[in-house]
């Protein structure tokens, strides 16, 4: 009966101190633990590489050695639960928040959140978007506008951080001079896939409130009120134009009827 050997091997794969399983053999009597180490190494290093692929800016912020050491602790504690590794690392940011050696970089976890949101946006569903011609008509009727609700593209995410996550991310794309970034400036990021490209845009607190309200299914007019309450000079028009232009709006409904 062989039931159970995979349990023992699994433990030995993830735990550094766990002894090599006893039921293994080699043709020449060489140490089976040094051969089993090939599997150990494959498992840990391939999963670290998967995280490095998903979090390239986080890696650059801490350096390769630190990142790999941190990732190897995470991988052993939280191995993936699915063979679809594009989703691996959903809890990596939360792990960084409490990982003692990372405490000197309070912005690290939120940068990782931005990177994970980008991956999610990249692979999110393809949904037909509404063009300006569809919305122009509806937007022209002020009475209808009151009750209008917008459905946003599934790739769209808003991140609110006490740190300069968008600027830090942009600096590592060569868009911003890192020396000019104060990491302790609060920033809001809009992540959105426009056709095949994922865009990361810094938005105002009011715009973040507005989008958050839309995502919570509040009517357009109500969402705009929240934004204006936060920032009296908030101008909805350029934001709405940008959303339409980048295909961020997939549906609208007037009261209960969907278009």
């Amino acid at each position, binding site marked *: 009966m062989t039931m159970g050997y995979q349990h023992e091997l699994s433990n030995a794969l993830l735990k550094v101190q766990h002894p090599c399983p006893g039921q293994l053999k080699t043709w020449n009597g060489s140490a089976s633990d040094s051969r089993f180490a*090939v599997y150990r190494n494959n498992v840990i290093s391939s999963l670290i590489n998967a995280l490095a692929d998903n979090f390239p800016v986080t890696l650059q912020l801490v350096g390769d050695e630190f990142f790999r050491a941190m990732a190897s602790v995470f991988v052993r504690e939280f191995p993936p639960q699915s063979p679809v590794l594009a989703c691996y690392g959903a809890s990596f940011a939360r792990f960084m928040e409490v990982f003692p050696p990372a405490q000197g970089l309070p912005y690290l976890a939120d940068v990782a959140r931005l990177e994970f949101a980008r991956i999610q946006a990249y692979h999110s569903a*393809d949904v037909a978007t509404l063009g300006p011609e569809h919305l122009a008509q509806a937007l022209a009727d002020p009475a209808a506008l009151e009750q209008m609700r917008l459905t946003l593209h599934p790739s769209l995410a808003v991140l609110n951080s006490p740190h300069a996550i968008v600027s830090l991310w942009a600096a590592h794309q060569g868009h911003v001079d890192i020396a000019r970034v104060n990491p302790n400036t609060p920033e809001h990021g809009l992540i959105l896939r426009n056709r095949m490209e994922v865009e990361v845009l810094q938005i105002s607190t009011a715009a973040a409130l507005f989008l958050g309200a839309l995502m919570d299914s509040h009517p357009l007019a109500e969402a705009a009120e929240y934004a204006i309450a936060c920032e009296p000079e908030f101008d909805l028009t350029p934001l709405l134009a940008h959303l339409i232009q980048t295909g961020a709006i997939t549906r609208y409904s007037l009261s209960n009827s969907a278009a």
Partner: protein
Amino acid sequence: MTSSILPHATGVPDHGPTLPKQVGLGLKTQHIQQILNEKTDIGFFEVHAENYMVAGGPFHHYLTQIRQRYALSIHGVGLSIGSEQAIDENHLNRLAELLDRYQPQAFSEHLAWSSHDENFYNDLLPIPYDQATLARVCEHIDRIQERLQRRMLLETPSTYVEFCQSSMSETDFISTVIKRTGCGLLLDVNNVYVSCVNHHWDAQQYIDELPLEAVGEIHLAGFAEDHDSLGERLLIDAHGTPIDNAVWTLYGDVLARTGALPTLIERDNDIPSLAVLLAEAQQAQGLLAQHSLVPEHA
């Protein structure tokens, strides 16, 4: 136990579509634009199923374009056929959806396990060759072929250790699985070479013992080299280097027996330019041409 004794007895349709007997390449995202622009002349492309189990976006956008122009092989790395636990039906559903969407000419998976309990280990882990494992692997392949309504190809493994409890040879095990389930064989010539060096088996004899008429695809790749604690060669199935001369020779020996077969060049690490991979493909295509006139099995 539902393993069928006769091939196709589980209601799996006949062999169905097959890959062209040409050379194919693993599809790498960094090469796709060039392939589409230059209309690369190649027999087929192969992708890892799990990379495409995402809702939408560029991966599907580009694979759709590739599929419109080329034959496709979908190669799974996450079904964990050798698992002690049942096949993950959610994963099988995702796979069925993917195969339905892209209608590939081949679907293949590994003789290995990669998941246990809730965890996925992202490696192809070894199994003992005994009756209990044989029964379980056949049961899993029966379920997969029934759910996918197609014949799958089972890939020969590369391994670094053996199990004390094994009661039959790897080739006996594989031959029996093929006989019982009616699945086909993905003969990874690099894996054969790696395992034969690592376990001191005779590669020619290994090939002789396999049911070569069941081969639906060949894989070629490069290995890395290490040593065990006694200083003997230990080869690692790393897919990060060109194909070794010993593997080319063994590939030629196989083709002399089988005639031309769909052949994939695999490179998953340290990926070079498309031109470098196409040069390896050219070398394999030359060997296929030499053997295309040899009478074929089946």
